[in-house]
């Protein structure tokens, strides 16, 4: 009996040791939430696999949701342990996510890396209250895209550089059948906040205006009045058909289809849609040109709006998961994970036509950034103003979207839209600051 007890005890000890050993050996599982397309997700998964090969103690799974559901997913899953460990977010959302403690400030080593390896302007968009909250990755900037073939047909030699030329080009490019606009000179997007507000804001800053200055909305300026009026004129003169500009939850839809089909002469869009255009146009992609935003009567030079995306870490994840997440992000955005000194993240971004932001990535991808379509954007970036990142920024953006759509559908005059936009913005920013 003694022997039997002793054997059982020893067996139990061995089993416990083996179990705890295997528990220690179990890799830390982290997840990455994004809104990218399946093709791009596959590239991220390949990079994650490579990371796991070098770090067998960490496994990374990728989850994707449509852009329209991304913020809701992050918010609704809160900071629970089941929610994604890493999330890709739009910089406009950061102040509120940081205020609500859903995202973790970067550990010291990572913060140091972010501060030194990214341009100061880009890194600042990833910080709140002097703390970095994530790795900046993509930079997006708006420019005028135009259909060279339609320009040639209309006898327009060069893309418009001023608002007067812009309006003249829109008039020449517009074709009507009775009351119906068959080909619109300039495409305005609707049903998607950034798609509506960013092109408007690009024209506004190119006219010497601003959305917000020192935390106060400045939509009551003369420059803003001219921009609202420009929109109203385009609608009234029939250079724009709002029915051709609808967007869906995946930020594609009729606005893209109409540009790809040659029903839209010009549109203001960000560089990231290069991959969508290539997919829709195929060999005809070379018909698309990129030019700076036309300068308004009150503007001094062509300007634009830029914004960035960053990857953040969930505060609700376990300590091991958070540590693994920062390690993975450092590797993914670092110079050793991609080709020729570029990061794996920059390779993924450039496959979509998105500009990387890390200084070493810009150098490593100098050749790619010089390709026809992107070069126009890169040139624009130097004079771009970042879209204001403030508390209440998303609500501000959605409220402005509604008044701009009011003009697009003839429900508001330029004056009414401007008055509403300013009053809404003051109220939203004041309430958010409380």
């Amino acid at each position, binding site marked *: 009996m003694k022997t039997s007890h002793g054997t059982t005890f020893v067996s139990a000890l061995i089993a416990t040791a083996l179990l705890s050993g295997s528990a220690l050996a179990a890799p830390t599982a982290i997840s990455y939430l994004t809104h990218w397309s399946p093709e791009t997700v596959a590239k991220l998964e390949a990079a994650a696999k490579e990371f796991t090969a070098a770090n067998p103690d960490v496994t990374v799974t990728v989850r994707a949701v449509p852009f*329209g*559901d991304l*913020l*809701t997913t992050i*918010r*609704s899953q*809160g*900071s629970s342990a089941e929610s994604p460990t890493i999330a890709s977010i739009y910089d406009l959302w950061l102040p*509120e996510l940081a*205020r*609500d*403690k*859903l995202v973790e400030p970067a550990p010291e080593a990572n913060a140091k890396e972010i501060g030194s390896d990214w341009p100061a302007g880009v890194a600042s968009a990833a910080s709140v209250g002097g703390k970095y909250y994530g790795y900046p990755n993509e930079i997006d900037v708006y420019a005028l895209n135009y259909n060279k073939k339609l320009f040639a047909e209309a006898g327009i030699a060069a893309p418009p550089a001023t608002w007067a030329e812009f309006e003249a080009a829109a008039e020449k490019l517009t074709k009507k059948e009775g009351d*119906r606009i068959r080909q619109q000179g300039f495409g305005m997007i*609707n*049903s*998607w906040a950034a798609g509506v507000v960013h092109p408007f804001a690009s024209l506004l800053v190119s006219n010497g205006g601003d959305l917000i200055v020192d935390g106060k909305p400045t939509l009551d300026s003369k420059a803003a009045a001219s921009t609202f009026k420009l929109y109203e004129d385009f609608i009234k003169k029939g250079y724009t058909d*709002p*029915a*051709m500009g*609808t*967007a*869906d*939850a995946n930020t594609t839809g*009729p606005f893209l*289809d*109409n540009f790809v*089909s040659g*029903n839209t002469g010009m549109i203001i869009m960000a560089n990231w849609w290069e991959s969508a255009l290539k997919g829709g146009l195929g060999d005809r992609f070379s018909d698309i040109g990129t030019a700076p935003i036309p300068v308004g009567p009150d503007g001094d030079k062509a300007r634009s709006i830029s914004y960035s995306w960053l990857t953040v870490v969930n505060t609700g994840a376990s300590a091991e998961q958070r540590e693994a997440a920062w390690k993975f992000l450092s590797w993914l955005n670092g110079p050793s994970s991609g080709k020729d000194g570029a990061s794996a993240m920059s390779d993924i971004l450039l496959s979509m036509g998105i500009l990387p932001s890390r200084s070493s990535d810009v150098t490593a991808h100098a050749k790619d950034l010089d390709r026809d379509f992107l070069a126009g954007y890169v040139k624009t970036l130097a004079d771009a103003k970042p879209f204001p990142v403030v508390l209440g920024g*998303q*609500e501000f953006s*959605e*409220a402005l979207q*509604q*008044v701009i*759509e*009011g003009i*697009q*559908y003839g*429900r508001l005059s330029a004056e009414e839209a401007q008055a*509403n936009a300013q*009053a*809404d913005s003051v*109220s*939203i920013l004041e309430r958010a600051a*409380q």
Partner: protein
Amino acid sequence: MPRLTAYRSWNALPNKENTAGPCVRSGGPQARRSSPQPHLQNKSAMTHSPRTPILVMLAPAVSLVGVFIFLPMLLTIWLSFQAWSTQTGFGSTRFVGLQNYADLLSPLSVGRDFRQAFWNTAFYTALSVIVILPLSVALGLMVYQTRVAGGHVLRTVLFSTYMVPMIAVALVWSKLYSPNEGPLNQIIGWFGFDRQLWLSSPDTALASIVLLNVWQQVGYFTVLVIAGLTQIPTSLYEAARIDGANPVQSFFGVTLPLLRRTLLFSAVIAVINAVQVFEPVALITQGGPANSTNVLTYYIRRVGIERAQGGLGSAMAVTLMLALIVVIVALFAFARRGDDDK
């Protein structure tokens, strides 16, 4: 199929039409006269039983209802008077009185968008009910005719739309509605009608979503009508025919009055379903264009979850709940007045 179960329970309730049917078939009055005694005995036994066991028996159900229905409702009402971020605990709430409700009535964006969402929801609900109910009765009558060949197949086909997942419906209908290449415009073009903008115009977008809803839901309501029709005794039609009533008179004199309870149930369910519309808006239009398809559930989600404004979102939810209560009570009052008029 919880709704069908609910419907069966509903129809099991005593009412003029339901009790009339079985009575005719079983010589009713006699049978009914013989039943009161045991019923009274039971009542007497219940009256004399101690109060405690009744409370004990009721406790589980009452507790469940209290915890899962009344408590969340009370919590929502309480939150509607607070400023609160949904990402923080209830301890961080700040009492703001009626401010959230005042915001809903304000001329600023939150008030404008809420009122637009409220009227969009009301329009969507009214149009859905107005179209679905008569259509379901018409289809129900058509399918119920035993002489119609393939009636069962037609019934299955009609009901099948109800079983299609909304994501599939949204994908297909968003393509059907495409103004340029959409088949719907091609079809109406064959009949000489102009191209419609459907989801791309604020004037037609909401009605287009209603059409999609009607297509998906009408089969379910047709099945309800068929169930109601089966409960109407054929002897009443025979009596009406002997009295010289033509089919139209039979419909308005026999069918429609005896379908009253079914139609009331259908109307209540149709209203509740319509008020809760969310998926087609989230999947297809995102509330646009120009806020024309922004409905309350979608807007509450945007405010309460995306913007984390829990107090404001709760005030919207409470307003929606009150509006729904008013509509449902009005429907019952309307039905009761009809019963009293008889």
